């Protein structure tokens, strides 16, 4: 090492060492003057429980924090990132955004999402993290830093129609737990009833890749290497998972329906089983009420391998650049991930609580959970939840699409699973950041 390199290295180290505390110092510990922050939320773009609950939470927060006014902006989940980009270009940087997990990496590298560790004092951060499920907390972590806190998130659940199970000679008290059992049950259903055996939300234009990732991971496969540089969805374990889905389809156990059509077929009582996010539970219950016995079980596993479900849904991220607004945004984020807020989010919107200690607490969800047994498989899976991985770089959506197109071609299009996934992986790898 020569003298110049040593000096530059020392200066850089000193710069980093001084910059981090400076960032946290520049953010005030309290909001002692009036400030308005924007809160981009996709529940606000919907009509009904999600929007009502969110408006209620915002009102409660404003009442508790009179100096902070929250300007709620609604945008549909698929349009939210485009809206954030447009507003950043228009110099109207949003302060808090409910970001879909698949867009988390993009929000860090391209939208300027701020790591909580970079501006929240460590003691305050530790105090807030106390009580949060460790598996839930790591969903918003990228490269060791917390960029988002899981907000409205859920796990894949196997919903089933107990009446159709009985009609097919199956025991509804013993739902299938492995993919092999799912296949057998689905074939029995298609043979003895007019209903579809199995529907899923894995494929389709609006399906994303979260459910697919869970199926692949449950066979000990993956979509990306640990260092997030290399795609691995054409590795043998992933291909085997795709081949299993192909076999389900070829055997007639699995019907190829679009996400919306599958959801509605299940709600209409015309399908035996349906693998989808627990977030659609409210929708299915409305269709089932007075019509059929809707039940739920955990996501199926591959033989003896434990299932490894990942989450769907969104995290709250902070994009504020102004220190005062950033503090106000953190106050909002703390409130929205508090015990009180998670009680509302779980009970009124239908997602999982990030704080598991409220589940049995009668002050929060205790009584409600007892009355809603459908939530149980979802809660069980919270203990084994793994993160929905978001592809890195600006081409993340194209990479995701290529992977899903390859898998869909292999499952429904008659393509060879190994070849289709390899071809998709090779094409998508070229779009990964170098």
């Amino acid at each position: 090492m020569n003298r110049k390199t040593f000096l530059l290295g020392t200066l850089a180290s000193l710069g980093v060492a001084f910059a981090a505390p400076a960032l946290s110092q520049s953010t005030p510990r309290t909001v002692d003057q009036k400030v308005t922050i924007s809160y981009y939320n996709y529940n606000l773009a919907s009509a009904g429980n999600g929007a009502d609950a969110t408006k209620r939470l915002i009102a409660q927060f404003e009442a508790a924090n009179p100096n902070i006014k929250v300007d709620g902006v609604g945008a549909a989940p698929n349009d939210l990132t485009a809206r954030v980009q447009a507003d950043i270009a228009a110099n109207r940087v949003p302060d808090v955004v409910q970001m879909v997990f698949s867009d988390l990496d993009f929000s860090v590298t391209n939208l300027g999402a701020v790591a909580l560790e970079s501006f929240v004092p460590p003691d305050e951060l530790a105090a807030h993290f106390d009580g949060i499920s460790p598996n839930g907390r790591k969903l918003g972590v990228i490269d060791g830093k917390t960029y988002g806190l899981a907000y409205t998130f859920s796990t894949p659940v196997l919903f089933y129609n107990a009446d159709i199970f009985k009609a097919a000679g199956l025991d509804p008290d013993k739902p299938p737990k492995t993919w092999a059992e799912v296949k057998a049950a689905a074939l029995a259903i298609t043979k003895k009833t007019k209903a579809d055996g199995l529907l899923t939300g894995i494929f389709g234009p609006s399906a994303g890749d979260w459910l697919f990732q869970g199926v692949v991971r449950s066979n000990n496969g993956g979509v990306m290497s640990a260092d997030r540089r290399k795609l691995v969805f054409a590795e043998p374990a992933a291909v085997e998972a795709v081949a299993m889905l192909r076999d389900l389809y070829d055997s007639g156990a699995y019907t190829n329906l679009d996400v919306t059509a599958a959801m509605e077929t299940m709600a209409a009582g015309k399908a035996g089983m349906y693998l989808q996010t627990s977030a659609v539970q409210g929708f299915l219950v409305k269709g089932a009420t007075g019509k059929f016995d809707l039940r739920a079980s955990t996501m199926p596993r591959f033989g003896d391998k434990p299932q490894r479900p990942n989450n769907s849904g969104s995290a709250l991220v902070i994009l504020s650049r102004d220190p005062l607004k950033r503090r106000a945004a953190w106050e909002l984020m703390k409130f929205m991930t508090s015990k009180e807020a998670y009680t509302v989010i779980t009970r009124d919107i239908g997602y999982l609580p990030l704080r598991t200690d409220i589940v049995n607490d009668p002050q929060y969800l205790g009584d409600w959970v007892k009355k809603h047994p459908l939530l149980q498989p979802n809660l069980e899976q919270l203990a084994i939840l793994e993160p929905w991985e978001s592809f890195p770089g600006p081409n993340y959506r194209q990479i995701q699409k290529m992977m899903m197109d390859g898998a869909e071609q292999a499952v429904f299009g008659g393509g060879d699973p190994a070849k289709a996934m390899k071809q998709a992986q090779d094409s998508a790898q070229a779009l990964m950041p170098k």
Partner: protein
Amino acid sequence: MTIDSAVSAPLRSMPAASPRARAKGKGRATTAIAHLVMVILSIFCLFPVYWMVVSSLRPPNEIYDTSLWPTGASLDNYAYALKAIPIVRMLGNTLVVSTVVTIAQLITGLLAAYAFARWRFRGDKFVYTLVALTWLVPFQVVMIPDYLLVSNLGLLDSLSALILPHLAGALAILMLAQAMRSFPREVIEAARMDGARSWRILWEVIMPNLRGTIASLAILVFISTWNEYFWPLLLSRSPENSVIQIGIQMFMTSEGTAWGPLMAASTMASLPILFIYIVLQRQVVQSFMKSGIR
């Protein structure tokens, strides 16, 4: 008895149909078939509307039933839809936006078309071609620059932002220019001889004679603005300042579609357009025939 008389005798004894009666009978059969085809086509066209209304009356657990009338019909979905989104305000917003855009496009279209049709000036064909070419540019391409513009003007989350990019439209200019070019020049010359200047010729001679085209254009612009979706979607920040198409879309979420309230909102949203159609039926049909189906 000749062969002819042998053949004609029994025919004469029958109540023979005259050629006119035969033609009349054939005409009736043709009319009946034509009516039957039209009745079938009408049912085919009206059934989705009927299904929308019926679905809006179904309770949530009957929404996928295929019965022609629900067993537990109620107006609950209407009550829910009215509570969930500010439908009346959104309908009012849509009406304001559609009316202002229609009037603005008619005025800018008339002035521009008059210039193109009435005078030859340097580069007129080039400018006309440019206007025509803007029609070929999808709105999605200019959405973001437009968004930045209205944001810089401080108009986000306002009805003005929904109106501003649509103040002038290529369709209006092209349609009116075409109609004005076919207007007899002799009439314009006669008006000039009588001392009328350009402004008066436009409003007092040409415009009254183009009432049909103007009415057709107004209907087309109004309906397409009423159904506009992408621009309000990008601009929409709160339902109170948005339009009904965004309100309807709010019932479609990743957690499922609330079909009952969605159909109730759609039924309410289609009423104004239905009213316009009933009142201006002939002009609506003519407008689609004149401009081609858009």
